[in-house]
């Protein structure tokens, strides 16, 4: 299980800083963040930095040796198969991000804006996947999507197909599984950014003659754009490196960067390559995230 909603959602732009967050009042215990910082450095920042470095060194068996070389990258990018997996992973992650963002927004909109009594139930359903591991949920998909699973049975019964469609091992299954795993986080991100939009703005828009669709399109959407971007970024970045869904639902036929890392690590024992692929995942994630953040900030900046 991965992910969270930690990317800051849209801060409502008009809100002035509270006295507490203004400079001048020093926090009582400024060093309290130190232990966590050290922890993150030790278990994350330093190992990752070394991994980055090792991708430009050479492995001799299990031992790292010099000299600096771009061989791992040359080999990767010289390989058409790798490029196609790279492209496919990015493409699938993008799709997952879009699906999560859209579906998450619909659910969040209901949860935040509706007064329905069903809200609690919906919220419970949204939260429910969090309590089970990705393996469990993937297993559920496996049962659903297999050749004589519910989906195929339903399609057959409906006469839409006349022999079972192999769904397991398709990109479709992987995207479905990933979207399922990540949807709750997209919902939460969208919720918190929707909550920062004053409902009176929507009322004002309706009052000025805009219908619900126009209001959503012209008022709500622009205001929550940074939050949506954050939701997309989060789900996209996690999809890039998600292993379990791709491995199980991909049925070995759908390769992603993550399954490739594991293969290189475990099956073919090419650790240098594994490190280099990790760097590629990192780079794709970092580039996308920062590009989107810039776009998000710009759309916020325009508001002054």
């Amino acid at each position, binding site marked *: 299980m991965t992910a969270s909603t930690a990317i800051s959602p849209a801060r409502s732009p008009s809100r002035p800083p509270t006295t507490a967050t203004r400079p001048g009042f020093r926090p009582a215990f400024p060093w309290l963040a130190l232990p966590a910082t050290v922890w993150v450095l030790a278990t994350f920042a330093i190992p990752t930095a070394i991994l980055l470095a090792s991708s430009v060194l050479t492995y001799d*068996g*299990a*031992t790292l040796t010099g000299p600096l070389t771009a061989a791992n990258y040359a080999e990767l990018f010289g*390989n058409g*198969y790798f490029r196609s997996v790279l492209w496919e992973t990015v493409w699938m992650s993008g799709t997952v991000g879009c699906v999560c963002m859209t579906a998450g927004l619909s659910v969040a909109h209901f949860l935040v804006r509706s007064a329905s009594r069903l809200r609690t139930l919906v919220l419970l359903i949204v939260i429910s996947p969090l309590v089970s591991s990705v393996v469990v949920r993937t297993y559920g998909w496996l049962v659903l999507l297999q*050749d*004589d699973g519910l989906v195929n049975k339903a399609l057959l019964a409906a006469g839409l197909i006349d022999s079972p469609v*192999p769904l*397991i*091992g398709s990109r479709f299954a992987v995207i479905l599984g990933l979207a399922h795993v990540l949807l709750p986080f997209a919902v939460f991100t969208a919720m918190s950014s929707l909550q920062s939009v004053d409902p009176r703005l929507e009322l004002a828009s309706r009052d000025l003659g805009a219908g619900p669709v126009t209001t959503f399109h012209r008022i709500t959407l622009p205001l929550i754009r940074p939050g949506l971007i954050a939701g997309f970024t989060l789900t996209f970045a996690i999809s890039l490196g998600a292993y379990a869904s791709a491995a199980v639902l991909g*049925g*070995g*036929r759908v*390769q992603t960067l993550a399954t490739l890392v594991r*293969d*290189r*690590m*475990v*099956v*073919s*024992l*090419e650790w240098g390559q594994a490190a280099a692929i990790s760097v590629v995942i990192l780079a794709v994630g970092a580039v996308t995230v920062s590009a989107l953040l810039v776009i998000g900030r710009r759309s916020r900046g325009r508001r002054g």
Partner: protein
Amino acid sequence: ACTSTSVDDGEGDVLLVEGYGAEYQQLFEETIAKPFTEKTGIRIQYTAGGSASEQYAAIRASKGNPGFDVAVMTSMELYQGGIDKLLAEVTPEQVPNLANLPPKLREHTYRAGAIQEVQQVVLMYDRKAFAQPPTSWNVMWEPRYRSGTLVFNPANVLGVYAMLNAAELDGGGIDDTAPGFSRIAELAKHALATPQASAEAVPFMQKGTATAFPYFDGRAAIYARTTNYDYTVPREGTYALLGALGIPVGAAHKEAAYSFVDYWLSADVQRRWALAYNVGPAITGLDFPAEFAAKHITTPEQLERTRIADAAKVMRNRTAWGQQWAEAVR
């Protein structure tokens, strides 16, 4: 030894063995572990790890000190371990019974372990679909059967051997795999599934949807008893997978490990294990029921006929084959 502190406290010696799970583990406990402990007093702790390559990855990642003493792997990993110098040398000095191994098998130990079983790739087929047992790998490509075949992923060695077998059909081989992949590409258009693990084939047998597909004889025998499937070795011959035992260089209980390997290679254990797991023994010339002998590699002649892939080539090409396979089935 630091990794094993939790298990070898007191009560005599302990040996940490890591191998496959499921029925392999069950059989191992009954057929090997229990009698071994009775005989030597050494307790065996068996853990189901991942596949053979995962076992070796653990050895390599730990620079030969993965926290277990013996790994159940294949000859491929022995080869790699020999090169990496991460597996302890295993010679008849430490393991006298090694001397009984036929030369053809000895050479595939790379002095880095022992072969304890010979699995062969067989053709598993649906008794209902075939009046007579099929005699050629070619049946999988026949329009009647191709929609019930399985195309194994070469991430699993079974997939590698299946590909090699396919290549041989069109005059290719380990040095010319192109025909194999073009056959896979053709088959993938119709095949029932592209499993990664042999376990994934089970449902197709239980539901009777599979027609014919390659399988290892160990598991094949189990399902030949419990389902309506049977297995055979086609006339083109086949490849064998050499089950192997390796001892990481950093193993804490090396002495016990050697005696364990020696024990497994002893004649009656070999016979017992072969019968239990339905594989060929590593020692030829043992006495087997005729029915059993017909289906598994028990004689020097059978061994001679069976192809054994060159581990060096397999290891070298594993990644490339994986990619070619993925492109073929895409």
